């Protein structure tokens, strides 16, 4: 069997895969495809064009008051703001949804100075119409700035710039707003951003200079906050931006002073020669007046290339020469501008040194003060009357400064015025010290000559008081007075030496003045002055031996007062004893008993003075106002007085019994037997009434009763004997009864 031969199967040729272009060609070769495609393209093109045109037409037809709108826009661009505002407002009335008209109206209103209304328009766009527009936000920020809200304006603008970070105008606005707000750090941030957006050119250079100033401001702020490191960083940054910045030298100097010490730096700067250092381009504060420049202070600023002479220049090397600065951005201003050219703040100018132009209340008074004429001194002295005020303190200082020039007026015031005013004048004259002594005497003479009627005390009394307060330093100034024959000068001189409290120095007075004159001044001296003087008297001095013993010396009180602090109290005691029981001394001694410091001396002197003072002592003892202590001390004096004292005491009993009777009786008992005889004598002594009436008046009285009781209380043998004798002689029954009871020690007897 054979099989038919099978045709040999040829291997299939490899089929190349169809490319895209082959596929496209084959598809387009199909009938109708390309025509359909072409038709589609044509239709789509027509529809697209139609759609665009319809859109434009719709846009145009949607606008009402179109002519007004477009002309309003043109008016706004050409600067006819009033016309633009009118037209655009009209457009918005007819077509409130014309956002661009509203946007432009806001801008126009802002330029017209109606910032609040502009803000309203932009706010409508942002909030009412929900327009998300960076431009609108920027204009909103501008209106906020115009309304005086720089912080809010800057924040709104910065938010808007997040959407359009390449907007140069926006960053310029933020920079200015931050400056206007005084936030220099934020201004530096926006300024740097702006600098990166600007191309090289004058505008960029200007910004660099301005930014350098702002950076320097930041540096100054940091320096003020005590952060020197950051301040230095800012200074370097500012220098990198603009090395010729006027603000920079002060900051650099401050930082250098921080390193090297303020004093050294200040010395270095003030010693530098402006001419030479200016050539070297360094910082200089000029000092020497220009020989030919009428005395201007030459000042040189770094980088200026030469000295800048100003008529009343400040230290312009450190400070800027401008006298005005912007209170918002602190930039210098040439004058009192209405708008800061740097930050745009309105009415920004403030004086750098405002006190320079502060008005003087009275130029005449100021000039009087410079001339130190009479009017000025009189004004100053009058100011002393404003107690507690600042003027009072100023006047005090000024008068002290004037010294001799003010003496005449002060003395006149002290003489004429009274109260605190008078005291203040004297106090100032005293504070001026002894150097004014000659002027004081001259003033006194001058015032004295002007007196028409010599009624009352003259200014000499005041001068005397003042001079007495001087110490030894005034001695050279007082020597001239010895030659003066004027009685007032002589008085003042003696008073001064008295006031010194120096007996040795007083010798010159003793040698040149008659004792009567000296005694006269001693008698008129102030207690403290005289006491101080007496304290210094030594034993055997002429004063103690002679002058103070004069009966015309009336100041026994001062003698006693001086005992306490005296160098040698015994001297004064002896003087007192030698002077005897004068009325003044006795009174003083009795008063001194009440003084703990003087009691011992007083008691001693009283005791030694003896009988003449005992009656006064008894009177003081009987004084019901005396304290118990004083009474005890006086009782002791009386007791020491013995029989003399007893006689006074026995006579001291009154007609009727009193509380004092008991104390007197006690004294008599303490005196003891020495009192018996005086008591008996007092008992026997009849009063003048008894004598006149020849027995018609009863003998029975309190005195005799008290004496009888005292004798009874004494109880000694002489007392008993005296009682017996009295009883034997007594004819009055009642008295006899009292005497009898005293004899038998039966105590109290009724009336």
């Amino acid at each position, binding site marked *: 069997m054979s099989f038919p031969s099978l045709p040999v199967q040829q291997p299939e040729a490899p089929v190349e895969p169809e490319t895209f272009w082959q596929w496209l060609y084959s598809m387009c070769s199909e009938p109708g495809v*390309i025509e359909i495609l072409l038709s589609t393209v044509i239709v789509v093109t027509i529809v697209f064009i139609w759609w665009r045109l319809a859109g434009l*037409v719709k846009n145009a037809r949607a606008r009402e008051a179109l002519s007004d709108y477009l002309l309003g826009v043109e008016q706004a*661009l050409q600067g*006819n703001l009033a*016309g633009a505002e009118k037209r655009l407002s009209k457009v918005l009335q007819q077509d409130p949804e014309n956002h661009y008209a509203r946007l432009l109206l806001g801008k126009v209103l802002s330029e017209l*100075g109606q910032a609040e209304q502009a803000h309203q328009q932009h706010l409508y766009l942002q909030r009412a119409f929900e327009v998300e527009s960076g431009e609108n936000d920027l204009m909103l920020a501008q209106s906020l700035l115009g309304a005086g809200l720089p912080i809010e304006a800057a924040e709104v603008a910065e938010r808007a710039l997040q959407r359009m970070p390449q907007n140069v105008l926006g960053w310029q606005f933020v920079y200015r707003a931050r400056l206007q707000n005084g936030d220099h750090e934020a201004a530096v941030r926006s300024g740097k951003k702006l600098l990166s957006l600007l191309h090289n050119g004058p505008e960029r250079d200007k910004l660099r200079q301005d930014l350098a100033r702002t950076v320097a401001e930041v540096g100054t702020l940091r320096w003020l906050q005590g952060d020197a490191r950051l301040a230095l960083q800012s200074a370097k940054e500012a220098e990198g931006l603009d090395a010729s910045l006027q603000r920079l030298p002060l900051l650099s100097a401050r930082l250098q002073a921080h390193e090297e010490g303020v004093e050294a730096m*200040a010395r270095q700067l003030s010693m530098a020669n402006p001419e030479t250092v200016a050539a070297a381009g360094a910082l200089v504060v000029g000092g020497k007046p220009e020989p030919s420049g009428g005395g201007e202070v030459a000042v040189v600023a770094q980088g200026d290339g030469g000295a800048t002479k100003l008529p009343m220049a400040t230290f312009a090397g450190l400070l800027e020469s401008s006298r005005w600065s912007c209170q918002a951005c602190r930039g210098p201003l040439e004058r009192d501008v*209405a708008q800061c050219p740097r930050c745009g703040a309105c009415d920004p100018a403030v004086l750098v040194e405002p006190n320079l*132009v502060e*008005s003087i209340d009275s130029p005449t008074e100021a000039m009087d003060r410079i001339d130190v004429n009479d009017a000025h001194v009189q004004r100053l002295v009058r100011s002393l009357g404003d107690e507690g005020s600042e003027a009072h303190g100023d006047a005090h200082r000024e008068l002290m400064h004037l010294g001799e020039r003010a003496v005449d007026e002060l003395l006149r015031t002290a003489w004429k015025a009274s109260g605190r005013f008078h005291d203040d004048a004297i106090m100032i004259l005293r504070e001026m010290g002894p150097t004014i002594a000659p002027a004081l005497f001259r003033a006194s003479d001058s015032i004295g000559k002007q007196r028409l009627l010599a009624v009352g005390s003259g200014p000499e009394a005041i001068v005397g008081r003042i001079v007495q307060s001087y110490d030894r330093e005034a001695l050279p100034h007082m020597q001239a007075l010895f030659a003066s024959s004027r009685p007032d000068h002589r008085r003042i001189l003696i008073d001064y030496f008295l006031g010194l409290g120096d007996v040795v120095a007083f010798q010159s007075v003793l040698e040149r003045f008659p004792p009567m004159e000296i005694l006269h001044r001693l008698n008129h001296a102030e207690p403290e002055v005289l006491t101080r003087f007496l304290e210094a008297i030594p034993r055997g001095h002429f004063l103690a031996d002679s002058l103070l013993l004069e009966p015309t010396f009336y100041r026994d009180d001062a003698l006693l007062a001086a005992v306490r602090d005296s160098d040698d109290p015994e001297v004064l005691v002896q003087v007192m004893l030698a002077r005897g029981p004068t009325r003044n001394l006795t009174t003083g001694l009795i008063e001194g008993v009440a003084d703990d410091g003087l009691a011992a001396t007083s008691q001693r002197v009283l005791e030694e003075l003896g009988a003449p003072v005992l009656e006064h002592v008894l009177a003081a003892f009987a004084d019901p106002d005396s304290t118990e202590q004083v009474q005890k001390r006086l009782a002791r004096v009386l007791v020491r007085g013995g029989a003399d004292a007893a006689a006074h005491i026995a006579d001291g009993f009154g007609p009727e019994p009193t509380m004092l009777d008991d104390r007197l009786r006690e004294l008599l008992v303490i005196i003891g037997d020495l009192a018996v005889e005086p008591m008996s004598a007092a008992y026997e002594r009849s009063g003048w009434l008894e004598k006149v009436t020849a027995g018609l008046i009863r003998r029975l009285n309190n005195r005799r009763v008290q004496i009888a009781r005292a004798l009874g209380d004494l109880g000694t043998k002489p007392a008993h004997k005296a009682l017996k004798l009295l009883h034997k002689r007594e004819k009055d029954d009642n008295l006899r009864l009292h005497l009898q009871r005293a004899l038998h020690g039966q105590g109290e007897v009724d009336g």
Partner: protein
Amino acid sequence: MGKIGSVVRKGLWAPIKAILPKNPWLRVLVYALPIVLVLALFGPALDVVLRLVDLVIRVIEPLLQTTIGRILLMLVVVTITALLLFWLLRRRVREMRAEATLGRHLQATAALVGLDRRKSRDLFRRVARYRGPLPDRYPHVVQDANLKLARQSLDRNKVDEALGWLARVVEPGLPKELSRSLLQLRLEALRRQGEVLPATLRREAEQAVVRFPEDVNMLAVLRDLSESEGKAQEVLKWQEKIAKHAPPATRVRERQRYVDALVAAGQRALQGGEVDAAKKIAKRLQKAEPDGASGKLLLGDVHRAAGEFRQAVRLYGSTASPTGLDRIAELLGENPGVIEPRELLANCPMQGGLLLVARELARAGEYQRAERAARVAAESLGPTPTVCAVLAEVLDLLGQEQKAQLLREQTVARLLSPPAN
């Protein structure tokens, strides 16, 4: 004939026209119907028509066999249809073009207001190229676009381009607002271009100002022209008008400029020896700035130039300004002792006046009074830099160089020291 035709039109045609359908297609059909009927009555004529149709089919048939033929056929049909439609809707198309241009202008304006300058420039350029029918609602659209383009060119400092756009503006028929812009921009462009003769520019500017006397930009051109020609009086005249008519936002600046110009003119007059002119300018200054110091300072300068130093000092002092103090210091520096210290202080009743008195006294050799004046000044003013500088000078004059040096050091040290708190 005309009358008959008119009668026929009004008497016979009008009722027919009234009953005709409003749709233009139907109306064409109604018009065509009687013609077709009439043609049907004429067989030969119909044959001709049929033959023509046959001819057309014979021409078309081969075209339908190939792709290119079909494409050509389709394009022909579309073109004919488009032309027919355009012919039929030509009025509407004109209106639409105008409105579309207006719409584009509005878009450009919106971009301009919205600060998108590039887009607005492109759109304005397209509007400016437009030569079709103008929109009824704003027929000045092209001129407006030209003006805006000119303004933008000026803003970009492309003066020649701006002049080109301005030259394309058709002036007759322009509304007042656009005319003002045209004049304003043309003046500015010509001024910046700098090649036009000054006389030409001045004539143009003066004519423009006659039409628009309150336009600040035009006035500014005149001012700048006068300035470049050195006509000071004219500069003042124009600047005064500018200050008067400037918008509030710039009024302050312009007023300041006016004052500065007056001051400069006054100084020039003084330097030229024209005392009367300077006096007049001083009065104008006082009028322009009643509360300012410039007028009094200039008047003081006038008196100073005339040798009336007392009057000068009085006027300087009455300004109560630091500049016044500086001027007095200058005057006294040049003419020491021209005024008694008491009179000086009475005429210059400021704290700073005390410094002047101190320096005058020191210069006059009255050392005690000078010292007292310095002390009074220092007490009143405190240790400010100016005070210290002047007092140091006074001390120098008094022969107390050590004290002066110390004072300077202290002042500088105070500047360099950080605040206490």
